[in-house]
Each structure stands twice: as structure tokens, then as C-alpha cells.
């Protein structure tokens, strides 16, 4: 049976750890010709330069060839071709499909249609599992473990798919603690808090972004987007509250690292960049190794 990566919960804890192990291997030795002679389709029904370049670099470093499109305007979807037909056709040509799509559930559907593995590079607001795995690899690398992590999530916790998936993934490890810092209107949805409660995992909610971060091992920042607010006044009230600056990191633990899925706007002040606790650019680089690992795993290359 073919293996896909559609949703972060598709993988077991053992598989998470296997990907971490492979990612470390690719970090030590990024160029390994495991995809030599193979063709990978990179289908971006919605543009995403960052994710696409990370994937395509990973594929190149594995020695694979790439076909596909970078934005929907140059795809057959503009002629009205269904996703079903596009995937049917491409799965005849390629050995693996990496896809990003604006509609939720598109990747799961594609996996049903396709005869070759599908890696979901983001389906609307639903899932972006490779981001979660690179976040986990970044946590593992900086903390030496995925157990006993005190993880602070800051900003838009209501709509941010990256924090939802990371919460689900980290909840399989030993003794995590979650701290959610968000304005009232963007708090972590009930369903995810319920997920933690069912597993007896501790979490705390805060509206104020203060020195409580001194407890943190990881501070995961997200963007508070204006378009998420129905009331512009509400946005004005909170837009400058959830900004991390260097001074705020002074009394934090020495091992704390600041992560952000990028792109950032103003939620991390640029003075943080020079702090040894800033980790978001390295995090992005980890994404490439993690994607090499994910491709190897779903295609059984190693």
C-alpha cells in the first residue's frame, strides 16, 4: 500500500521519530542521490514560494527531477479541469506528488485518486503537516528531546493551522505543558483544548503577553492577521499586544528558542533577530532536511 502524508495525525509517534532521525541524517549529509531517475510532480494550485522552494530544493538534493507548476494560472485548473482529472493524469507521469491547494480536504481526495504517494504541502486552513514535522525537528534539535517541553503559543491560536497541528503532534510525547497566549477573540478552539484534557495534558490560557514566558522552552509566535477580525476596533486593540521584543527575552530560560512559521510581519521585533534565542531562520532551513526525510519515508528510500 502506498504511503501518503496528508494530515499530521496520519503518522504514529514512531514515524515522527523516524522522520526526526532521517532529518538529522540529511542535515549531516544533505546531498544523497536517493531520488535519482525519479520524477516528482510539484503542483501548487495556490502560490507559496517559501514552501515550494523548500520542497524543490529537497527534491534536487535527493537527485530527483521536478515537473509541475508554481501557480494555478499556469495550470489546467484555469481551463476548468477538475482536481480529480489533474491528479489522475499527473499520477500516471510522476513517482510522487507534492501539492498545495486552496481548498480544504483537497489533499485527502487527491490521495484517494492518485496511484502514487501524495505529500500535502498545505490544503487551505486545514493541514500543513510538513511544517509541523519541521517544527518538531527544530524543537528536538534545540532542546535535545521532544519530552517535557513547555510550549508557549502566541498570537492567532484560533485560525492558525500550524499551532493546531503542532499541539496534536506534541501531545503524543511525554509530559508536555502548553501555554496559550492570545486575545479573547483568537483563543485556542475548544476542540483542541478538549484533545489535551482527554489525555490529561496541562495547559494554561493567558490574554496578556508578559513575563510568564520565563517558564518557556519554546515560544511559538504566529501572526495576528487583520482579516481575521470582524471588528476593526478589536484588531486595533490587540495588534501591538502580541509583539515579542528582545527585552522580553532577558529573564527567559537559557535554552528557550523562538519559533515562527514565517513570514513574520511585526510580531517579532527585528531586534530579536540578533538574539541567540531567535531560531526562526534556522527553523526554515530545518524544513529542507525534514522534507528530504519525509520524501524518503513515504517512498521507502532509506
Amino acid at each position, binding site marked *: 500500500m502506498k504511503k501518503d502524508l496528508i494530515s499530521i495525525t496520519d503518522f504514529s509517534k514512531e514515524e515522527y521519530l523516524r522522520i526526526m532521525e532521517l532529518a538529522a541524517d540529511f542535515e549531516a549529509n544533505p546531498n544523497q542521490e536517493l531520488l535519482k531517475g525519479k520524477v516528482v510532480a510539484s503542483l501548487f494550485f495556490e502560490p507559496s514560494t517559501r514552501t515550494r522552494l523548500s520542497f524543490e530544493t529537497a527534491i534536487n538534493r535527493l537527485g530527483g527531477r521536478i515537473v509541475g507548476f508554481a501557480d494555478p494560472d499556469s495550470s489546467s485548473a484555469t481551463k476548468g479541469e477538475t482536481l480529480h482529472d489533474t491528479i489522475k493524469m499527473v499520477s500516471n507521469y510522476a513517482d510522487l506528488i507534492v501539492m498545495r491547494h486552496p481548498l*480544504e480536504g483537497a489533499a*485527502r*481526495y487527491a490521495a484517494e485518486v492518485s496511484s502514487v504517494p501524495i505529500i500535502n504541502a498545505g490544503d487551505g486552513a486545514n493541514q500543513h503537516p510538513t511544517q509541523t514535522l519541521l517544527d518538531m525537528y527544530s524543537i528536538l534539535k534545540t532542546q535535545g528531546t521532544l519530552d517535557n517541553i513547555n510550549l508557549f503559543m502566541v498570537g492567532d491560536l484560533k485560525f492558525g493551522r500550524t499551532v493546531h497541528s503542532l499541539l496534536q503532534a506534541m501531545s503524543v510525547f511525554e509530559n508536555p505543558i502548553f501555554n496559550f497566549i492570545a486575545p479573547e477573540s483568537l483563543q485556542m478552539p475548544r476542540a483542541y483544548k478538549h484533545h489535551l484534557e482527554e489525555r490529561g495534558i496541562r495547559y494554561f490560557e493567558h490574554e496578556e503577553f508578559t513575563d510568564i514566558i520565563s517558564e518557556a522552552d519554546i515560544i511559538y509566535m504566529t501572526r495576528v492577521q487583520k482579516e481575521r477580525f470582524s471588528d476593526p476596533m478589536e484588531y486595533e486593540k490587540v495588534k501591538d499586544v502580541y509583539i515579542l521584543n528582545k527585552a522580553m527575552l532577558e529573564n527567559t530560560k537559557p535554552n528557550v528558542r523562538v519559533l515562527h512559521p514565517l513570514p513574520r510581519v511585526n510580531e517579532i521585533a527585528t531586534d530579536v533577530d540578533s538574539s541567540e534565542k531567535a531560531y526562526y531562520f534556522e527553523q526554515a532551513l530545518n524544513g529542507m532536511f525534514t522534507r528530504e526525510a519525509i520524501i524518503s519515508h513515504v517512498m521507502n528510500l532509506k
Partner: protein
Amino acid sequence: MENNDMKKKLKLKVSAIKDGTVIDHIPAKSLFEVISILGLDLIENQITFGTNLESGKLGAKAIIKVSDKFFENDEINKIALIAPHAKLNIIRDYEVAEKKIVEIPQKITGIVKCFNPKCITNHEKITTCFKVINTNPIALKCKYCEKITAEDQIKML
């Protein structure tokens, strides 16, 4: 006394059948959806139905009698989402031979529309599929977009 009279009249309104199935306690507003889900509009059996009948539990209820038709459990459970209190009497030779209640299945395939407008199933011809994650109130998790359709958001396809 008045209530008993009412019951008698109700029985008269929907005539007895020799063999077949009586589906009772359908919320009146769901009658036509039940007919459509069970495909009763497409078969040639004799069917009688009554609607807006008085019912203590449901307010206004509907009842359907289908001659010479016996439903499989899988088939009948499809109506559980809109008529969770429906009761079936299986009639053989004018007698109630068996009684059945509907049960909400664990998986709902193809009947319900995903409430998420950005779900792929609302954009391409795809059979919807939900896992029933709660029964009271009903909550359905879409296999595709993973969003949860709550009881008050359920719309039939």
C-alpha cells in the same frame, strides 16, 4: 378521552397495510427528506403518508406506510440524522411482526453536505463521508476537510 379519540382518528387517516413497513415518529418537517433519502419517490410500491399529525414528543409528526417494502438496517439508519426518534413497525398480514428503532451509524456516506464552504466536497463531485464523533447532539467530522459539522448545521444533499 379526547386524546384517545384523536388517536383513533389518526389511525383512520392513514390506512392499514397488509404487508410492509410503517415508519412513525418522523418530525413533520423532515418528511420529504426522509422520502428522498429512502428513495421512496422512485419506487412503485403503494405508499400512504400523513403529516402534521399531533404528537406529544415531536410537536408535529409524520408517518409513512410502504406496502411490500422491508428495509435493511443500513438503509433505514440513514434517516437517523433527521428522524432520530423514528420507529418502524414491520407488518405481516396486518399484524405488527417486528419493531425497530433507528440508530445513528458510525459513518455517514453521501447523505450530508459538509458545512465548510471551503471543503473540496463542495467544489467537486465527491461523495461526502463523515465520521460520527458524537450522537447527542450529533457531530460529524468530514473525512476530507476534517471540520466538524454540528447538528444544527446539518444539511442533506
